[in-house]
């Protein structure tokens, strides 16, 4: 490595030259074909976020229909058959098509910016993952629109979801959709892991990585270990249903509980996969709102890692009612309570941060952050209750649990996400969202949320099981259910305000400038929205709060080729420059490969052996993907 001498007189000129070269190399291809060939992380990230919000809308409409049905006892608004499809689709949509993908979208968008590089490590894999997600979602929803919506619940317990008790293709669609979204999640996890480990800006040692990046890194590792479990089990279910294997058939030695073990081995970490980036958002928002360093950075990072690790030790607490040996149950009970400690530590660090700052910027993002504190705290405490085996046996599979996980997931993920949206949308679009509408949006959601879900705690104790399509008047559940439905209407209103605010602000919002919040992470140093190459010169980092500790004469990286998509690989621990790494450019092959895989997956739902055609097609498209190009500088391939 050489140390170049500063040459002030030529800097400006060089800068412009490099900028136009980068613009040319990183330009997204035009036209329809071009639109399908994009591999830049901003565009893919935005598409993830946009698609996920569409699915949120669908899941929300499903929820509203359910609340309408449950508003009155003995209601005949929806048939039981349709209601079963609705709640399955709602759960499935929210978990697989909204929560994880939207966080992945934010991670894909933000991580390269935050660690100071130009793109994720494997841009084409990234595009492939997005297409898999889209195809999986479309596949599931086409089924739903054709009366083939899954109806066995989002955890599809066998034998109810098996060949005998779920006739038709409904559950097959569901199981195969899982495979689609898991392929997508796994590709994103590999992206994020590699990007965080190797593409950080010089100087960004492990102890200087922004908390949000840490959180998505832990999330990526969790995905790598958790998602294979659901791919395996949904594959087993599909085989049981289509070719007559016996994984879950008790009469041939299979066991319905095997499904539950495999499912929850994924399903419980899934909750943390969703929640951990939520805490990452909160830690970032809190730093921005107080303009103070996060208190206890190391403690928070260790908490994230501990949570990720322990998240794999609690799956059995979803199965206490299946009659496990008492000793085993006690172990998982203890593990469930212990995982509250790292989350507690994070809470105390957040309190300490605000406390020592004494001042707060009360913008919409901060509102949502406080919404998170008050809601998630309640969800965490009911979670501790569910960790006790005797209490769990009372409230398991009742509306208490419904209340609990909505407090945890909406409180722990949606509220931080909304905060993050208000925080980062100015970066993504260049315009601020309207603050007044934002606060109206917050209060509608906050009040509506509590009105909807708080009564459900009581309903659970009063004996209302979840997933009932109706209930009788003499159960006395009518009043609280009606209250919940009114709350749901407020949430819907909040959602409309949110959409309206977004649409209005994109046209009339105040231009954001580079850094409207005085925030600390690298992405605020580039323009809003950032150029496709993120930074003309990759930045270097000299402190944990990159922009706050930045000095005017801090060095930047030069010497990267501007005639191809090139980034800098740095050391895992210390962030020292290691080598240059050439990224591939735009390509249509990820889409074609995704189509090939989709053909195989979808065909195998109907005729299992047709999977073979999918494999052959996929192999051919992969050949196209990796076909050696004549020009070794494949980054500058045609920009048509």
């Amino acid at each position, binding site marked *: 490595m050489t140390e170049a001498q500063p040459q002030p007189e030529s800097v400006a000129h060089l800068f412009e030259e490099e900028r136009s070269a980068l613009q040319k190399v990183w330009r997204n291809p035009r036209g329809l074909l071009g639109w399908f060939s994009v591999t830049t992380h901003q565009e893919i990230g935005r598409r993830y976020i946009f698609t996920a919000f569409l699915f949120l809308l669908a899941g929300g409409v499903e929820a509203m229909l359910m609340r309408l049905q449950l508003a009155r006892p003995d209601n005949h608004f929806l048939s039981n*058959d349709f209601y079963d499809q609705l709640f399955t689709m709602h759960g499935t949509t929210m978990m697989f098509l909204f929560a994880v993908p939207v966080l992945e979208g934010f991670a894909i968008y933000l991580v390269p910016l935050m660690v100071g590089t130009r793109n994720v490590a494997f841009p084409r894999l990234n595009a492939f993952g997005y297409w898999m997600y889209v195809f999986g979602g479309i596949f599931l929803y086409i089924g739903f629109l*054709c009366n083939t919506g899954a109806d066995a619940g989002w955890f599809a317990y066998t034998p109810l979801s098996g*060949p005998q008790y779920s*006739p*038709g293709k409904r559950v097959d669609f569901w199981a195969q959709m899982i495979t689609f979204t898991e392929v997508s999640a796994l590709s994103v996890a590999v992206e994020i892991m590699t990007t965080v480990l190797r593409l950080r800006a010089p100087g960004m040692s492990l102890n200087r990585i922004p908390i949000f990046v840490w959180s998505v890194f832990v999330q990526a590792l969790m995905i790598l270990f958790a998602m294979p479990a659901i791919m395996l089990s949904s594959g087993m279910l599909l085989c*049981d249903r289509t070719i007559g294997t016996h994984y879950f058939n008790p*009469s*041939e030695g299979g066991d319905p509980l095997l499904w539950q073990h495999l499912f929850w081995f994924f399903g419980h970490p899934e909750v943390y996969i969703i929640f951990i980036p939520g805490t990452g958002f909160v830690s970032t928002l809190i730093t921005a709102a107080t303009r103070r360093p996060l208190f206890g950075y190391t403690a928070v990072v260790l908490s994230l890692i501990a949570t990720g690790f322990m998240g794999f030790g609690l799956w059995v607490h979803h199965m206490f009612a299946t009659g496990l040996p*008492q000793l085993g149950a006690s172990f998982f009970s203890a593990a469930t309570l212990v995982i509250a400690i790292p989350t507690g530590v994070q809470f105390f660090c957040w309190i300490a941060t605000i406390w020592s700052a004494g001042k707060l910027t009360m913008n919409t993002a901060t509102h949502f952050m406080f919404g998170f504190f008050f809601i998630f705290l309640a969800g965490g405490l009911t979670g501790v209750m569910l960790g006790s085996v005797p209490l769990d046996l009372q409230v398991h599979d009742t509306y208490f649990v419904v209340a609990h996980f909505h407090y945890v997931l909406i409180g722990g993920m949606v509220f931080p996400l909304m905060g993050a949206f208000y925080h980062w949308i100015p970066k993504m679009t260049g315009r601020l969202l309207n603050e007044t509408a934002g606060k109206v949006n917050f209060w509608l959601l906050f009040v509506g949320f509590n009105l909807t879900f708080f009564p459900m705690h009581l309903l659970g104790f009063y004996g209302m099981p979840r997933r009932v399509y109706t209930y009788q008047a003499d159960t006395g559940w009518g009043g609280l259910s009606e209250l919940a439905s009114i709350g749901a209407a407020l949430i819907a209103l909040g959602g409309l305000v949110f959409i309206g605010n977004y649409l209005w602000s994109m046209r009339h919002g105040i231009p954001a400038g580079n850094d409207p919040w005085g925030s600390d992470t690298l992405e605020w140093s580039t323009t809003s929205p950032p150029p496709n190459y993120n930074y003309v010169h990759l930045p270097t980092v000299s402190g944990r709060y990159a922009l706050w500790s930045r000095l005017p004469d801090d060095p930047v990286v030069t010497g990267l080729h501007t005639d191809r998509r090139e980034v800098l690989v740095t050391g895992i621990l210390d962030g020292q420059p290691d080598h240059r790494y050439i990224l591939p450019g735009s390509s249509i092959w990820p889409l074609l490969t995704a189509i090939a895989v989709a053909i195989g997956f979808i065909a195998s739902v109907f005729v299992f052996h047709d999977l073979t055609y999918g494999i052959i097609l996929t192999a051919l498209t992969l050949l196209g993907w990796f076909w050696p190009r004549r020009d070794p500088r494949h980054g500058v391939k045609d920009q048509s």
Partner: protein
Amino acid sequence: MRFAALGTIIALVFVASCQREQRNPRVVAASASVMTQLPRESELVPGGSVPQPRISSPDNGNAYDINQGQTLFTAYNCAGCHGGEGGGGIGPALNDANWIYGGEPAQIFDSIVRGRPNGMPAWGARIPKDKIWALVAYVRSLSGQQPKSATAARSDDIEPDPHTGTTKARGSTP
């Protein structure tokens, strides 16, 4: 969106099979008049052959009804004679292409309703017609005469495996 066009095309393909997933528990009358138009068991009739009325089962291809038939097949102990999954036993096998009294839906319906010599009881008075149609739908699925996408790959009951005699009970838990 660009997906809209793609979505519409795929949707049209799927609409055709929507009916396969229909679950209508309250079908009652569809089969009411069927008894009068039952086909004859033999086509040898005085005065030459009469064109046989071809009545297709109202349940043909509907996954839910095939499944109902499967449940009833077990519940009514049809398997007692015809074997689990129609593999045969005291009574003839149902999972092959050999039909003594015909394999058309109406003929199977007739066999169940009126019974047949050498052991098959008449179930007409014992099973309501729509459930008989469900049984017909299931019986036809055993010999692959229903769309594969509408039939279950296996049941959760014991397979007619010669090695397997008993249900393997699992250990009990406290």
